[in-house]
């Protein structure tokens, strides 16, 4: 594997051992172990929703019984120890033994085709649903008998109370009976879906039309485990259900949400499958078919579901863990004693060359004259800045930052005294009505200005890399992969692997542009135009000398009332926004209160911010309306 960072999709990893070596247990902890509805995740239907690359399939594969058993059978392995702790935290283990038998059913195959058959919706839904159930039962049995750890006749299924009538239709409670019936159902239904011409409804094979509902009937499974018996709960993980037709998905989801079902069922899906309202988390639009979130089902969002600062911190841990697992697998780094990935992308600030520093000083002097700031006032401002920098925890306290902060404050000073009367007889140096303040926002604005004025790197360091990834594992690996490719160059050239700030920024910016150029999803052209337009406006405002938005803007705000109407309307802009969110071009923050108004913030994603040289700090936004979005996305 030349650069494993660049080969992410877990489906491509065929070998379980390799998968376990590189899989990070962090998503289990991040999204499941501390979920407020953790107690219900094996009882209620669960929709695990995430953008492409957020780690849904990795999570599903890791939870499969086959891998859980492989992990538990070799507890001496350090990787397995970490994974088993995470599995236990998410409820997959109980007292060091499996508590759940999960099986992942990819939904990308022929299920969608059943919706094209010339039958009634209810018939088409049943065919797909029964095929899913048959394959789940076969997958379960394959997982339970994997590695010859137990025989088929040692597995017993336990039925739900009052399900006697349904036992016969699923082949009884013996594993062999259940397997034979599942095979029969699978064969019959597959023959319908795969036939060149669909049979007439009255000629459907009996095995495909007889009742078959193992999910409603089976409650637990009794298996031999390390010399004893163990009762575990079955769980079907339907992966990539967004591949279904939307109506088909609704019907299957409704069927799976029946309360009497004791079989665990998770639906892993992309945001695309949801309505714009649901993507924007409008409470009114999430309810579906009389099903209510949290009562009838639980949504687990793999991004943006909790406090964003907390989420960012958690993602950094997860990303560091993943990167440290991938790094030793890079061919060029073999036989090297590698430090943690974090140390290879240090946040040591860049330094301007002497020549650039002289240019900057000259510019500040010119601006001092332009803003009519007296030497005494400049000295006061410089003291203010020096005082802030002396007390700050930030590692970036270089002289150029101090100079750029002085420039921002001089511009602010000029603004604040602009309405005061100029005296003809003395130096005009009044105190501003609102005193000037040097703080972190001004420092961040200074760094942004330095990027524009002197080409000084703005985006570097592990935290910036994580923040630019918008808590998306795949995006992180893509960006990190580009940095690793540059580290390979360092290795080839016989240099230290750690990348200086400027190199990091060059790589990240080029990769971000490449990612954006590669966008290929519905409305991608409109989304690109919209984010480019917003980014250009944000940058213009961010670079105003007085930096009125502090660290700078990377978002626009639309009044909640207006956004609410848009999301409920049949408007193409709503779809553009939905796909922009679903594919990581923007993020949305609802009900953001500022200036006694309620805003919906459309925040540019980290990749867009990288590409356009905007701050990754959140909060700075331009007040706009939906017409503005429509115009930019045209």
């Amino acid at each position, binding site marked *: 594997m030349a650069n494993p960072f660049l080969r992410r999709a877990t489906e491509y990893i065929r070998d379980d051992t390799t998968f376990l070596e590189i899989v990070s247990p962090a998503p289990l902890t991040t999204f499941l172990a501390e979920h407020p509805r953790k107690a219900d995740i094996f009882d209620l239907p669960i929709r695990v929703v995430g953008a492409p690359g957020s780690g849904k399939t990795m999570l599903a594969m890791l939870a499969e019984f086959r891998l859980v058993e492989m992990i538990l059978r070799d507890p001496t392995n350090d990787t397995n120890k970490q994974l088993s702790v995470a599995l236990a935290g998410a409820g997959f283990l109980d007292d060091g033994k499996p508590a759940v038998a999960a099986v992942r059913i990819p939904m990308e195959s022929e299920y969608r085709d059943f919706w094209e058959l010339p039958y009634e919706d209810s018939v088409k839904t049943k065919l797909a649903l029964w095929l899913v159930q048959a394959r789940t039962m076969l997958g379960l049995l394959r997982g339970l008998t994997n590695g010859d750890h137990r025989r088929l006749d040692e597995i017993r299924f336990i039925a739900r109370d009052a399900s006697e009538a349904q036992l016969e239709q699923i082949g009884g409670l013996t594993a062999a009976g259940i397997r034979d019936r599942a095979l029969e159902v699978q064969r019959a239904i597959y023959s319908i879906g795969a036939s060149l011409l669909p049979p007439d409804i009255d000629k459907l094979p009996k095995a495909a039309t007889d009742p078959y509902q193992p999910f409603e009937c089976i409650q637990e499974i009794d298996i031999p485990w390390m010399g004893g018996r163990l009762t575990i709960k079955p769980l079907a993980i339907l992966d990539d259900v967004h591949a279904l037709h939307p109506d088909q998905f609704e019907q299957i989801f409704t069927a799976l949400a029946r309360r009497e079902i004791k079989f665990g069922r998770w639906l892993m899906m992309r945001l695309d499958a949801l309505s714009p309202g649901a993507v924007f988390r409008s409470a009114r639009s999430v309810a579906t078919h009389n099903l209510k979130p949290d009562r009838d089902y639980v949504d687990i969002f793999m991004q943006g579901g909790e406090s964003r600062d907390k989420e960012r911190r958690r993602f950094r841990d997860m990303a560091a863990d993943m990167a440290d697992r991938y790094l030793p697998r890079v061919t060029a780094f073999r036989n090297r004693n590698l430090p943690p990935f974090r140390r290879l992308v240090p946040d040591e600030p860049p330094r301007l060359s002497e020549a650039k520093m002289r240019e900057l000083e000259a510019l500040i002097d010119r601006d001092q004259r332009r803003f009519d700031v007296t030497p005494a006032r400049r000295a006061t401002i410089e003291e203010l800045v020096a005082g802030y920098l002396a007390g700050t925890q930030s590692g970036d306290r270089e002289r150029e930052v101090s100079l750029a902060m002085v420039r921002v404050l001089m511009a602010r000073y000029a603004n604040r005294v602009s309405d005061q009367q100029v005296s003809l007889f003395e130096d005009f140096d009044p105190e501003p009505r609102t005193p000037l303040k040097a703080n972190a926002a001004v420092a961040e604005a200074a760094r942004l200005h330095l990027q524009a004025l002197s080409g000084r790197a703005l985006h570097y360091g592990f935290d910036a890399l994580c923040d630019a990834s918008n808590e998306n594992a795949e995006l992180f690996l893509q960006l990190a992969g580009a940095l690793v*490719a*540059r580290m390979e*160059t360092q290795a080839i050239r016989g240099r230290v692997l750690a990348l200086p700030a400027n190199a990091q920024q060059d790589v990240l910016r080029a990769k971000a542009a490449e990612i954006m150029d590669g966008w290929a999803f519905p409305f991608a052209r409109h989304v690109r135009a919209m984010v480019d337009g917003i980014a250009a406006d944000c940058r213009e405002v961010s670079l105003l000398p007085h930096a009125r938005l502090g660290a700078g803007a990377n978002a626009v705000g639309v009044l909640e009332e207006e956004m609410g109407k848009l999301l409920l309307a049949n408007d193409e802009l709503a779809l553009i926004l939905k796909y922009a969110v679903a594919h990581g071009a923007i993020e949305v923050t609802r009900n953001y209160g500022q200036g006694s108004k309620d805003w919906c913030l459309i925040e540019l994603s980290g990749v867009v911010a990288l590409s356009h040289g905007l701050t990754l700090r959140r909060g700075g936004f331009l007040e706009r309306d939906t017409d503005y979005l429509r115009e930019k996305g045209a």
Partner: protein
Amino acid sequence: MNLFGLRLIAQIMNWTDDGVATAEYTWLSLMAATKYDGYSDFRAGSRFTENFAIWLKQFDAEDRQTAYDFIKRRLVYISNAELYRAIEAFYPETVTPHLRRLAAQQAGIQPHEVWGSGDGVAAFKRIKRRSLFIGMSDGSRIDIMRRANSGRITQEQVVPMMNIGTEKWLDLAKKIKEADAGDTQFEHVYLIDDFTASGTTFIRFKDGKWNGKLQKFNDMLIGAREAVEAQGKTFPIVENYALHIHHYVSTTQAHEALLERTERANREWSDRTFGSIDVTQGTLLPASLKLTAGRDDAVIALCEKYYNHDLYLRLIEHAGEAEQSDLKMGYADCALPLILEHNTPNNSIPLLWAETTGENGHAMQPLFRRRDRHG
């Protein structure tokens, strides 16, 4: 990953920009691993990266970027895996459609109806049994062709080389009858070779005389027929059989030349043994593959600058057949940027394969060393 080789290339190419170096390392590593390292003449410790470094270094510093860009953007390398695909496709994509058309004619139906008609299927099988496949050189990879078509073509329908003795002809006559008593002779003969760039090796007319593999095959067949019939036996190929010439890979120049020359031979050869002749290929390389003035001036200039006339002197007999006065653009002036994994054609530009000392021109080291039959 060959760190040392890559570092060397970076020094030779003077890649001071890390971004450029990273992009090029990625490309070099990918191409070496997936293609170029497989070249049959490379050995452990001296594969693509090392040879590429040595090759680049022999150019003057100002010419290196042109040489590098040529390899990156113009070189076409046909790997064994790719050639095998062309071999495997020969029967289903060339032979079957042709035989199906003939079977349809015989059965009085449309070609697409052949598999649905008993008469069509029987005709197809009969024509197939009466087809003989002959390899023209080692490159025809008859072993691969035979394995790929196991169950379709019998052992007795395949002859791995052109020089067939009388005994073999008698054996073929015996075997075709054994397969079906009604069959006594082959009606279709496929002559198979791996690659043609100019068509000259296959058929050429020079100094009022025809020459080439086709001429040799025709002469051989006349002699063999006489020898077999002298023994009172039936020669296993009918008079005026249908001749099919197939190359797995052909340039457009060769394809056009073969069409033109075989048509002329068909008209002019009084002693031709075949009744009809057609020319096919698995992969037709486009005419744009050839280096041309205007588009490839920089590389053509390198071909001039680093040419060593020793090459021509060494290969004069062979090159003379193509009526050339130098070999700057390769045999028959084909000017190809082409490498086959098992060898480099002499029709490719010598810049790629020339191995010369400093006499009569520039001393050159090859990037893809050529195993030369002609000297």
